[in-house]
């Protein structure tokens, strides 16, 4: 008898529980303060960029950082609705679009849209200009000049048993699988399981040599001398080289990938006007130039180019010569099925 009554009481309480969300919603107030919530890569903006914007426009910026694109994507897909502006890589744009996560930036209303170099207008990954190019760079090899007898020149150097336990690879399916495909001369358009088996084999062969799969903390390891050779993104390494001048960057002779990170406006943003104002501000030549100087990535902003430090502007590894430019390719846009195959290979490599 007693247990039955207990259970009934318990049920009464259980009925009340679902009322909680309604109660919480009632507590939520409309957000009226002028603010833009900006979600960006770590170390990917100038020190004064945002304070200057706040000073000029009277809009404060809540700035949040991520160190991994897939994680950022997972967070936004899971419903992190708080953000207004986010930086996403070119290859992610179709994914964001197909899941209806972003709103098109009305590029016609931006004063400074014309500052962008023509080759970054209506790109293959975003032909209708839903997003605005922010910075671009390359994936290449970082190495420690003092610790390596010979300058690396090829992706194969990252597979050299001589460097066992001194190598780090980006913890990123796009870059690792793409490089393996490039070395095997497999086109990124493939859906042949046999090709993916070969890619898996090549990456697994490398795994015993790899000390870290990491997309951000490996930079500290490079500076500290924990590792001497790493797959890296250009500007990240140039930033790290400020702390350790022995670090240097090479574009592998096989050619490599370039990518463009873009500003995207998240669907459901409650601060559209001010978000657009911030995007327009980031497109100003002085602003874009000073960001490029500070993060050491190339700017797609043609008007900003003359304002970039001479050393950076003349560095063919940052602004490649037309000839190397020909060797750089954008990542192929994968359809969901291919994307699944890439992820599967990468998951198998990580797990084994």
């Amino acid at each position: 008898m007693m247990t039955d009554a207990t259970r009934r009481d318990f049920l009464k309480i259980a009925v009340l529980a679902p009322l909680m969300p309604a109660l919480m919603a009632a507590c939520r107030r409309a957000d009226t303060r002028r603010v833009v919530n900006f979600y960006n890569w770590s170390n990917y903006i100038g020190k004064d960029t945002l304070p200057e914007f706040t000073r000029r426009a009277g809009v404060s910026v809540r700035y949040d950082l991520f160190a991994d694109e897939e994680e950022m994507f997972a967070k936004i897909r899971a419903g992190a609705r708080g953000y207004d502006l986010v930086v996403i890589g070119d290859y992610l744009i179709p994914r964001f679009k197909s899941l209806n996560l972003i709103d098109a930036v009305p590029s016609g209303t931006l004063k400074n849209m014309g500052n962008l170099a023509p080759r970054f207008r209506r790109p293959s990954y975003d032909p209708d200009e839903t997003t605005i190019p922010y910075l671009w760079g390359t994936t290449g090899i970082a190495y420690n000049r003092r610790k390596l007898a010979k300058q690396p020149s090829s992706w194969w150097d990252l597979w050299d048993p001589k460097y066992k336990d001194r190598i780090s690879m980006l913890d990123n399916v796009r870059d690792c699988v793409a490089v393996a495909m490039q070395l095997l001369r497999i086109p990124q358009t493939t859906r042949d399981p046999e090709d993916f088996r070969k890619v898996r084999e090549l990456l697994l062969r490398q795994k015993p040599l790899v000390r870290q799969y990491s997309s951000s903390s490996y930079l500290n390891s490079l500076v500290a001398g924990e590792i001497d050779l790493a797959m890296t993104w250009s500007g990240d390494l140039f930033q790290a080289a400020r702390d350790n001048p022995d670090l240097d960057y090479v574009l592998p002779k096989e050619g490599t990938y370039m990518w463009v990170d873009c500003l995207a406006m998240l669907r459901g943003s409650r601060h559209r006007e001010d978000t657009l104002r911030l995007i327009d501000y980031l497109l100003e030549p002085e602003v874009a130039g000073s960001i490029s100087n500070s993060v050491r990535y190339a700017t797609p902003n043609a008007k900003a180019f003359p304002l970039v430090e001479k050393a950076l502007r003349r560095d063919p590894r940052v602004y490649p010569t037309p000839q190397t430019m020909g060797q750089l390719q954008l990542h192929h846009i994968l359809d969901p099925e291919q994307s699944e195959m890439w992820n599967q290979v990468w998951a198998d490599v990580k797990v084994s």
Partner: protein
Amino acid sequence: MDRALSWLLGGRRPLASHLLLAPAAAWMIVFLVLPAAGLLLLSLAKNGPYGEILWTLSLNNYRRAFDPKYLPVLLRTLGFAGGTTLLTLLLGYPLAYFLSFRAGRWRNAMLIGLMVPFWTSALVAFYSWMIILGKEGLLNAALLRFGFISAPISILYTSFSVLLGLVYFYLPFMVLPLYGSLEKIPRQYVEAAYDLGADRWTAFRKVTLPLSLPGVIAGSLLTFVPCLGDFLTAEILGGPRYYLLGNLISNQFLMAQDWPFGAALTCLLLTCLVGGLWLYRRWDDQA
């Protein structure tokens, strides 16, 4: 007021006192029962393009979880969890013994000393360990300075650094239950053993140790169980070769965008843990 309180606390209507359960029950339902049910449902779903969740229910994710390629991950996780439990027991038992029998007026200070590292965020603690264990870190510098080694050795990103991180973090989980059960042993029992002619070792072996067993088991469970799901330690202090079950699960949610599979793995882990605890309780009740 008094009448209302006494009504609430039972008195003539004992059922009313169940209302006291309401806040905790609501909490458990909203933050445990509902999410667990959601997780179970999610584990039956299908992973669609770009990680969309398709609600065509099947047991497919569970079938995938038994793929032999995950066996090394499972064994590695069991190894690290078991090793951590054993090491924390070996380190923690003497410590707890000292705390309850020998520490005297230093006891409280020592207990606080034990808890302080536990109050720091694990993230901060592990990053500090990185600074200590690195190739150009404090430990290598010290070893070089005193001539134990001639060139820096790899300490970070080895099984040693993972184990060290786990033992460091879980030691209080072991020591506190041990201390609790040692503290409860009536000192007269030990004295009685001495009076009956037992030496210190025999008294410990025949009286103290058996009476502290509940603490040993509780401490081991509190260490072993969370260790099975730990991913932060391996993520920060382990290299690519120390991929544990926790990393496998967190990667399904963060990297592979395969939430249903991650949910299935989580459900399996939870089932094993709850099942294990239930068996332990049954054994404990009978004993």
